């Protein structure tokens, strides 16, 4: 459809070349820097110094590694979301699934440390599996409600976040509290072989490897497998999927399991790579940031990894800004929000062609 208002003409695009799409995204991310500067200036904050602090995070090797590590839980959750969103499953519950991943990973460590149930060599691999399954099952519940009973997934996934956060609170304040921890709400510290920096010296390396492998798997799954085809078909048109002989229940359950499972592995990275033990509120909203990252990357798994590192860097920058410029962390959150708004604006420009007349 086409409308003309004040000499501005908005025309629906039939097809958009990939290059144009990328150019639009790039341009609007640049624009978000400009808008953010303007906002900072209005608030009386030196925008040049703020933005240069943010940029400098990506220039020094040590803070870049930090950015990568912070980005990995976000990235894994976002990779899961890219599957969920492609099958039209609006999972807002990556945050809760992260917590369920942390819970399971920590549980394995405790089984090993308290009962000796798992041998040392197998501990880390068991933690990966457990966090994947735990996060996955947690997301399968709303998936089941959706495909079996027709319950909209948005509210269940969102509300289950609080359940998971409080459940982890209960564990670390109660049964899982470190007996030698002076009553702090913390689990016991993980042994070295259950920590990611025990592998290549720095947790970032293993984290990045995991993320890249998962990105490749997700890409391959969606592109080359019959399951990926079914997931995309369900996301496109449920009637067409049914007509094509797709088992809706099975596909939705598998898709939501994978989505939650990847977020669960993100949770493992938090406890095993970032903190080294379980504590309350261990995720400062990585699961929500993952939604932004998934959309910024246009649900493309390969782009999700760098986008996640970018947002990981913003978190690191937030701390730097707080320390050196004496600004609240909110400054970085403002920046994040502006980027998200620009992504939404970019979506509009990808869908419509806008031309100016006279």
């Amino acid at each position, binding site marked *: 459809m*086409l409308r*003309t208002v004040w000499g501005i003409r908005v025309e629906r695009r*039939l*097809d958009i070349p990939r290059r144009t799409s990328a150019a639009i995204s790039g341009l609007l991310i640049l624009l978000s820097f400009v808008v953010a500067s303007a906002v900072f200036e209005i608030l009386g904050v030196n925008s040049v110094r703020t933005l240069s602090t943010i940029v400098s995070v990506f220039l020094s090797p040590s803070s870049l590694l930090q950015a990568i590590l912070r980005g990995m839980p976000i990235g894994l959750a976002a990779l899961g979301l890219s599957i969920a969103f492609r099958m039209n499953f609006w999972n807002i519950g990556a945050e809760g699934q992260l917590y369920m991943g942390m819970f399971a990973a920590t549980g394995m460590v405790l089984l090993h440390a308290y009962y000796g149930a798992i041998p040392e060599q197998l501990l880390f691999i068991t933690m990966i599996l457990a966090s994947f399954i735990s996060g996955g099952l947690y997301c399968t519940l709303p998936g089941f409600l959706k495909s079996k009973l027709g319950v909209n997934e948005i509210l269940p996934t969102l509300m289950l976040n609080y359940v998971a956060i409080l459940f982890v609170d209960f564990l670390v304040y109660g049964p899982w509290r470190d007996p030698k921890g002076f009553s702090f709400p913390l689990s016991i510290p993980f042994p070295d072989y259950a920590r990611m920096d025990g592998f290549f010296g720095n947790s970032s390396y293993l984290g990045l490897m995991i993320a890249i492998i998962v990105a490749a798997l997700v890409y391959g799954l969606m592109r*080359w*497998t*019959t*399951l990926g*085809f079914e997931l*995309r*078909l369900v996301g*496109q*048109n449920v*009637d*067409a*999927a*049914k*007509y*094509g*002989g*797709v*088992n809706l229940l099975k596909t939705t359950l598998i898709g939501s399991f994978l989505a939650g499972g990847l977020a669960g592995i993100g949770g493992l990275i938090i406890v095993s790579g970032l903190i080294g033990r379980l504590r309350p509120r261990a995720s400062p909203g990585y699961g929500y940031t993952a939604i932004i990252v998934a959309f910024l990357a246009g649900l493309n798994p390969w782009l999700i990894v760098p986008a996640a590192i970018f947002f990981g860097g913003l978190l690191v920058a937030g701390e730097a800004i707080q320390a050196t410029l004496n600004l609240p962390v909110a400054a970085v959150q403002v920046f994040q929000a502006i980027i998200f708004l620009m992504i939404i604006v970019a979506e509009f420009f990808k869908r419509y062609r806008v031309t100016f*007349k006279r």
Partner: protein
Amino acid sequence: MESPQTLVEMRGISKRFPGVQANDSANFTLFRGEVHALLGENGAGKTTLMNILYGLYKPDAGEIYVKGKPVQIRSPHDAISLGIGMVHQQFRLIPTHTVAENIIVGSKEIGFTLNYDAINEELSKLIKFYGWAIRPDSRIWQLSAGEKQQVELLKALYRKAEILILDEPTSVLTPQESTVLFQTLRRMASQGLGVVLISHKLDEVMGVTDRVTVMRKGKTVATKLTKETSPEELAYLMIGRQIGVIEAKKNVAPGPPLLETYDLKILDDKGLLAVKGLSIKLHSGEILGVAGVSGNGQQELVESLAGLRKVEGGKILIGGTDMTNKPPSMFIDSGVAYIPPETLRYTAAGMTVAENIILKAYKRGKFSRRFLINWKTVFNEAEKLVKTFNIVTPSLKTRAGSLSGGNIQRLVLARELALQDDIKVVIAAYPTKGLDVASTEFIQRKLAESRDKGIGVLLVSEDLEELAMLCDRIIVMYKGEIVGELVRGEFDLETIGLMMTGVKRAEARV
């Protein structure tokens, strides 16, 4: 006789969309006081040409003259102020507002305050003149499709349109409503308006117009006086070749039954019994027609035969195997091809043409090994099917949603008929509805080919001539039950027509 006044002249209009030349130096002239048909197949560029005249698209090349003056039409607003009105296929009315309110929306003459009495009076005058039954204070949602169309016409008349474009106006109307519309169009022409009727239906073009401009592949191929031409000539101009006649099968003894239903009971979406105990047998190598006014249980029947709707009672056997309430994938595996009534509903619009072609076959045969899809085979096969089924698409990676209706129908046909070797039964529901002559012929030919291969074809249609031409047997459905059955040789359109209203066969015979 003085020469008629030219209202519109369009010269050398070209318009390109990505991958399609929609208009290719098209010419069009409209006189005062005529009804002028713009005839062509789906995708011939009729609507694009008229959308350009109405300012919805900007032409790449060409000139437009309105009453002799060269004009630039940049928006519908420009078009309206030049006296051009257009009635689209989809009505653009606000359901909760009144007729009068819908008509004055966006009108320039109306000042800051509204004088409803004056507006209503003027509208009533127009309504009375055209002999309609609508009232200015009725709400749109209370009106039938035909009446809504009258509101759209009224809108154009109220804005003093002298040039009126109607895009396939009869596609939403019942035959009776169409007759009323044609009377209206004649009356408008006699008032000195120029009316453009976009259509692909030859009979209405022959019946109501003064002149015909035929379009093919974006070009205007000829303009004729209606009384000096014939449907055959127009069809030839429209398609560019003669239409063939499809041979009905010679009487051969029917093969074994491939599809059987026993006392089938099916509920509709509201939970009411839509099919009340239906028993049919479809044999190998025959086309069984299901006639009936749509909404008499046909939709529910075909959906259950494709496994898409649960059956409340009774049995469905395919090739002798009980398939009652089995999932759709098992129906597909047992060799049921289903051409659904709303093809777009069963198309993944955002996925590519190639992906839509393998929508049902992706797990089968050569397209996948274990869990991997073999895209190379998919593209090779899709390439072939696009050619054999004449699907017009810029590429195999084009989004299926951007294809025209006729092309989506061909895509569905390719997907259903060409990808499975062991098809036993083809369920075709209204496969040619709304399609142009060439596409209709193509689809009917494909169904006949399936029959010749020994497949059983169940053809649900409202088009009695189509049924009479293709079918070996016809059953007539009314309110979820079979009113009667006729075999080839007894087909009589009038009898079937009567039976469609619920008259039993014995009575209809008289």
